């Protein structure tokens, strides 16, 4: 199998701001170790992520270009450091060779709707500290072999990432995050939309049109 080029970042791509696509019906997809992930319509806890500590910066993918067929792809351990390193705009990326990745066909997946996930707030009560609100943030974090990679971040109202706040928050954050995902995870992405080029390609017609309009608007104001 040849590594799918549709997953690779291009020098013509830019980071996707999830705030700009919240109005679209965009879903996120995450791989699971097994095919069976739902019971009585609700995701099972062990499918959310392999280790509870991973929930703090859970990795997912924008669903669309990245789809169910790509779930089985896993970069081999020896090459993870390179291919999973963060992609920065204008950086060239190269396709992993056949011997640098493998396929795990036992994997399953689940979906999360971006509009419900991004900037969702959970008020947290804690008798030892003052109460605060946890906000779930979707952050686009492309890596060298996957432009569609995103991470979840759980932050307090000052923007501090909770896992870095204090060890005493670990359990609260884990349970809150898992319950939040349990509520929103679904086993199908019916009616989902791919992210239009406008939101990630530097030279899409829509994007250029928008720039031109902005330039004309500022010129007309002068």
């Amino acid at each position: 199998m040849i590594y799918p080029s549709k997953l690779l970042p291009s020098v013509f791509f830019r980071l996707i701001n999830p705030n700009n696509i919240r109005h679209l019906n965009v879903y996120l997809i995450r791989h699971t170790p097994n095919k069976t992930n739902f019971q009585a319509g609700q995701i099972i806890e062990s499918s959310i992520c392999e280790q509870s500590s991973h929930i703090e910066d859970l990795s997912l993918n924008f669903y669309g270009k990245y789809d169910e067929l790509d779930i089985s792809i896993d970069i081999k351990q020896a090459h993870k450091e390179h291919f999973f390193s963060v992609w920065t705009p204008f950086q060239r990326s190269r396709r992993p060779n056949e011997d640098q990745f493998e396929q795990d066909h036992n994997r399953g997946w689940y979906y999360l709707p971006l509009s419900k996930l991004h900037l969702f707030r959970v008020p947290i009560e804690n008798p030892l500290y003052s109460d605060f609100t946890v906000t779930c943030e979707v952050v686009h974090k492309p890596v060298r072999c996957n432009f569609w990679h995103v991470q979840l971040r759980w932050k307090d109202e000052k923007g501090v990432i909770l896992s870095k706040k204090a060890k005493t928050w670990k359990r609260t954050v884990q349970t809150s995050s898992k319950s939040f995902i349990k509520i929103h995870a679904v086993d199908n992405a019916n009616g989902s939309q791919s992210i239009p080029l406008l939101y990630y390609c530097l030279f899409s017609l829509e994007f250029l049109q928008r720039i031109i309009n902005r330039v004309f608007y500022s010129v007309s104001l002068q």
Partner: protein
Amino acid sequence: MIADLATKAPISYVQDIRDSGTGFYAGAHNIAIGYLSHVPFTNPAENISISENEYLAKVFLSLHDTKPYFHISKYLMPNHTFFKFSEAALENSLVVFNLGDYYNSKEKIETERINRLNIEISETIKTRASKDEELLKFINFRAQDQSLSKIVNFISRLSPKTYNIEITQDYSIYFTLMFSDTTLFLEFFLEKSESEPDFVFLVYSNGNCIANGEGDVDNVSNKLSSIFRAR
């Protein structure tokens, strides 16, 4: 009447029931207890749905993931919401379960239901723990401080419509309890920590978190009692 309600199951299943330790026993000296259900459940140790006003009918045994369960479907007997089997007799290589008792008392039904939930939840946890020594240590430790039995009793009294128990890799018990319009997520961290709570819970309704809290078993039970009383 009893003959009408008798049902048959292969003998091997009965043997499995005697040995399973799931809390459902059948045989001359034990009583098998079944409950009515709107939706035929697939594995009561994992997922239970109870209705008090369904009709009892066929009761038969099956296996799922090597655990036996009673599958009860809507059929004949009106208004008898609780029943017991008095005996299981051999008949042509099949075991026939005879209905021994049934009644309608709401109080009795409620008590039985709570007892049953209590047994099922405890058995589910014990079954999982029997396969994992480390988990068993934590369970035994929590048996000493009584927090496990206290929380299981408390959950049973809440009478969820359905529930699910999952034991996580880092040894917490994650309860998902579903009520008609709310879902309670309650995580019990078996390892004792100086700085972290034993329990964390969140209550969701219509996709929104409407309450949450943390603490030891008594704090959490009190908080949840007041939340559910208010609803």
